[in-house]
């Protein structure tokens, strides 16, 4: 019908404003597809690999080979597999040879082919890349030549760390897989190769309980266990999981927030169009048009806008997922399963905004379209009505300019709501970016690494005892145990035993005073997570190793950032956990000590904190992109509201020009009227950001047991405030031109307001 031609004309009349709305919707769909796409593809690669290639739930070593593995497997409902591990030193690195496993931690060939002949070797791709080795080439290991037939990934070495307790990868270190026979053929094997066990439970629930049961059974059978570590705490396995959880948790809420904001503004605009067309609608009804025909006509605008925004956002997001996934997996070795998208999510990204915005527009215009032709033709809809807030306001004590600005703002509640919520959203994103950056900096500067007075931490594979030999001067023994409060398995932390005169760790209270090492001290983030204070008792603390339960009375709280631990005197620790007096597993040292490498499960060196920043998230990039997004949202929202306000006040502006108002006076009256709303919006953004951040960090803590403190820096709040107001000023200037263009003849022609 002829009315269809009008739809594009309506959009053309206010191009800038509709483009702004399309961008808002686009951002929502873009974020939804990008976040779900990244999270799902990460999950497919990380979790898919773990499931398909049967990632272990547990790794451990024993003092003697386990005799009847199949009996133990059926007794515990577990798949257990032993594999040989043999480290070969090279001139510029080190290669760990593993025998191929078939039940769990099955290798996946990434390129080339699998092992077929004696002398074949599969290498991890980073090792072959850094060593300049190609498929088809050869590598000589302890005098034996191996043919490189491909590259591979193994589920228990997704993040290639040499030792279980290492934090950073060792430069030049890599892994390779050769046949069992080839490993056994090394002459020095008997003295240097070790057997490592991996275990995976058939039942995928209650992993902790099953782990404890297996541990108990092995102890009962007389095995001495070392390097006992579950997958959840194994950095070779758990590193990529954090990205998945945070991405997944925020994909829908953030997109929904964009769509809701768009709903508000599109609703306001479509309502305005329908109102101003009141007489035309009445006339069309009188000519025989049906309500549904006109509803369809006016619905075309929001539906077209939301479909265009949804589609554009979806299409733009598709090519962005691959690089993000690649950048997140750059440190990990995983098979490339290709990027796929869920058809449901693709459909939702387009249909969600159409449904959200279409429905809100329909509800807003329905009231007017329900009226009769006679009512509409009277033109009452075009006359501005006074809402209850305007009616209730008594502004006699204010100056005229203040009264005018307040009335201008409260004139349209949805418009005001859109401005306040929109600025809040932009401020929230901006503040979150800065707070995230600051929190990460605080964690890096004042977190775990800063706690180390002695910078070197040597972790042993097995528990040692002070009575078997002393520790050099400038070094201290520690013993540790992984625990969780009963019923809250996600809250895992270290129970640490330390000597009462130890100095290797800083243990200061909230005020910065040194706490006694002769008492039980808990880190502040853990205390707040468990809601305990000095003098409280943690009941039913469960050891992850053997499931034994302890109670601890807390004497002090250690100021900490993100760390979760409980310190107690070493002797009490050993007594409590049933270990012989003098037992220790870790040595903290002020200098390098020449321990036998075969005894060590990992060494942590806190002397170069910058090295840790390389593996932490690229926070500067995140802050920059988040700030750019916030500024874009603020510009769009303030521009939309201001231009809408100028349009709604067109006749008033024109009238004021006739009455002798100067350009600057008008700009101050009209454009400055949003300042309080922007101000309120910004400050609302702060509690919104805290609520959002706490909920996100709380979720991350529950999923991956990582605590990120929410540290708000007043300087960054000030910078955000200045930035938001700078955006407001710039947008005002842009809209000032529009204001100047309004002619005095508008009021003369319009007559009545």
């Amino acid at each position, binding site marked *: 019908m002829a009315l269809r031609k009008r739809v594009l004309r309506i959009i053309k009349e206010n191009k800038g404003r509709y483009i702004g709305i399309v961008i808002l919707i686009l951002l929502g769909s873009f974020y939804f597809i990008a976040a779900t796409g990244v999270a799902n593809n990460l999950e497919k690669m990380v979790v898919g690999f773990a499931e398909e290639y049967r990632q272990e739930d547990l790794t451990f070593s024993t003092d003697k080979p386990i005799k009847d593995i199949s009996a133990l497997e059926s007794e515990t409902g577990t798949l257990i597999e032993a594999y040989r591990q043999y480290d070969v030193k090279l001139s510029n690195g080190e290669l760990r040879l593993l025998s191929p496993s078939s039940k769990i931690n099955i290798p996946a060939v990434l390129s080339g082919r699998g092992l077929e002949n004696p002398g074949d070797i599969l290498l991890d791709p980073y090792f072959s890349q850094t060593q300049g080795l190609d498929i088809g080439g050869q590598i000589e290991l302890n005098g034996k030549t191996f043919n490189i037939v491909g590259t591979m990934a193994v589920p228990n070495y997704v993040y290639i760390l040499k030792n279980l307790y290492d934090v950073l990868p060792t430069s030049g270190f890599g892994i390779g897989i050769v046949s069992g026979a080839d490993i056994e053929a090394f002459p020095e094997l008997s003295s240097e190769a070790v057997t490592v066990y991996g275990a995976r439970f058939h039942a995928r629930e209650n992993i902790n309980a099953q782990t404890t049961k297996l541990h108990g059974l092995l102890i009962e059978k007389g095995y001495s266990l070392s390097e006992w570590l579950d997958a959840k705490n194994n950095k070779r396995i758990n590193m990529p999981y954090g990205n998945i959880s945070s991405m997944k948790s925020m994909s829908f809420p953030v997109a929904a927030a964009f769509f809701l904001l768009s709903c508000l503004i599109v609703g306001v605009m479509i309502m305005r169009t329908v109102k101003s067309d009141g007489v035309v609608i009445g006339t069309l009804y009188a000519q025989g048009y049906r309500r549904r025909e006109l509803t369809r006509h006016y619905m075309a605008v929001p539906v077209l806008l939301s479909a265009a925004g949804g589609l554009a956002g979806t299409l733009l997001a598709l090519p962005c997922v691959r690089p993000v996934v690649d950048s997140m997996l750059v440190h990990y070795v995983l098979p490339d399963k290709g990027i796929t998208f869920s058809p449901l999510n693709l459909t939702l990204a387009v249909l969600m905004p159409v449904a959200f915005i279409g429905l809100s527009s329909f509800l807003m215009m329905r009231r007017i379209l329900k009226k009769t032709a006679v009512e509409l033709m009277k033109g009452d809809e075009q*006359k*501005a*009505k*006074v809402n209850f807030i*305007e*009616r209730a306001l*008594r*502004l*006699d004590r204010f100056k*005229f*300019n203040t*009264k*005018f600005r307040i*009335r*201008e703002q409260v*004139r349209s509640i949805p418009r005001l709501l859109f401005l306040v919520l929109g600025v809040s959203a932009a401020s929230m994103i901006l503040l979150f970016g800065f707070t995230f950056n600051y929190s990460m900096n605080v964690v890096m500067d004042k977190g775990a690494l800063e706690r180390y007075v002695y910078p070197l931490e040597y972790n042993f594979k097995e528990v040692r005892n002070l009575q078997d030999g002393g520790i050099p001067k400038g070094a201290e023994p520690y013993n540790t145990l992984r625990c969780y409060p009963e019923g809250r398995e996600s809250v895992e932390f270290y129970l640490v035993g330390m000597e009462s005169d130890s100095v290797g760790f800083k243990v200061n209270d909230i005020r910065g005073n040194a706490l006694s090492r002769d008492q039980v001290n808990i880190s502040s983030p853990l205390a707040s997570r468990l809601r305990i204070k000095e003098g409280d008792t943690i009941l039913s603390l469960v050891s992850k190793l053997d499931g034994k339960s302890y109670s601890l009375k807390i004497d002090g709280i250690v100021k900490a950032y993100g760390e979760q631990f409980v310190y107690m005197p070493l002797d009490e620790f050993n007594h409590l956990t049933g270990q012989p007096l003098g037992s220790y597993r870790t040595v903290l040292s002020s200098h390098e000590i020449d321990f036998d490498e075969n005894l060590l499960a990992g060494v942590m060196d806190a002397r170069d904190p910058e090295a840790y920043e390389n593996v932490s998230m690229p926070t500067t990039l995140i802050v920059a992109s988040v700030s750019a997004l916030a500024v874009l949202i603020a510009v769009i929202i303030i521009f939309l509201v201001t231009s809408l306000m100028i349009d709604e006040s067109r*006749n*008033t502006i024109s*009238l*004021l020009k*006739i*009455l*002798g*108002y*100067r350009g600057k*006076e008008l700009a101050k009256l009209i454009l400055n009227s949003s300042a309080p709303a922007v101000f309120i919006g910004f400050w609302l953004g702060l509690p919104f950001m805290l609520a959002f951040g706490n909920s996100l960090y709380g979720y991350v803590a529950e999923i991956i047991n990582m605590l990120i403190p929410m540290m708000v820096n007043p300087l960054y709040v000030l910078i955000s405030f200045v930035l938001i107001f700078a955006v407001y000023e710039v947008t005002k200037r842009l809209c000032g031109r529009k204001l100047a263009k309004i002619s*005095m*003849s508008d*009021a*003369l022609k*319009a*007559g*009545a*307001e």
Partner: protein
Amino acid sequence: MFLSVSNLTKSYCTGTITHVLKGVDLKMERGQIGVILGPSGSGKSTLMNIIGGVDRADGGTVEVGGERITDLNDNQLVEYRRESVGFVFQFYSLVSNLTVAENIEVVSNISKNPLKTDEVLSAVGLSDKKNRFPRELSGGEQQHVSIARAIVKNPKLLLCDEPTGALDFQTSRSILKLLQEVNKKYGTTILMITHNSAIAGMAHAVFRLRSGEVAESAHNSEIIPAERIEW
């Protein structure tokens, strides 16, 4: 002479050129009421807009109180409208989301020596409705507010564009009465445009406009009080 219009011309180009004013001449003394009569399209509103400094002439001159406004630049015209002229429109042109008192303050806010809002409200008989919004008033009351807004700056010249055009007879008479009172009380020169020739009786000077020209101008020796005007 307080208001002097000489050989005023104005044309618009809307595809074809339309000559709206073709050498208009009119003169009025300070403190007089003038009425411009004429049918639609005769150029009444264009003439009023030029005198009010809202529009510009193509040729000729307009002098108000000794100031040649046809020579003023845009900024000077703003100052002229701000200080010297008050406007009353046919459809009141009130700001719908401001109360009655606030609508008057719109003008007093930018005037150098405005009258007090309460005094003006009392003069137009709306003291008890100062906190109402325009939609809560009748058409006549809205026009009273419009007049109050126009006189609050105590203008030299009050321009009224069909002030009774949207009102019934009784209300129209009350508006005309009010304008006559304003003229007497404040000595304001009033120029009114209207279709209604009955109003001519209350004016000192009457100008009949036809096709952009002053077809007839007359000066009444006897002024009829507004309450006696009939149509």
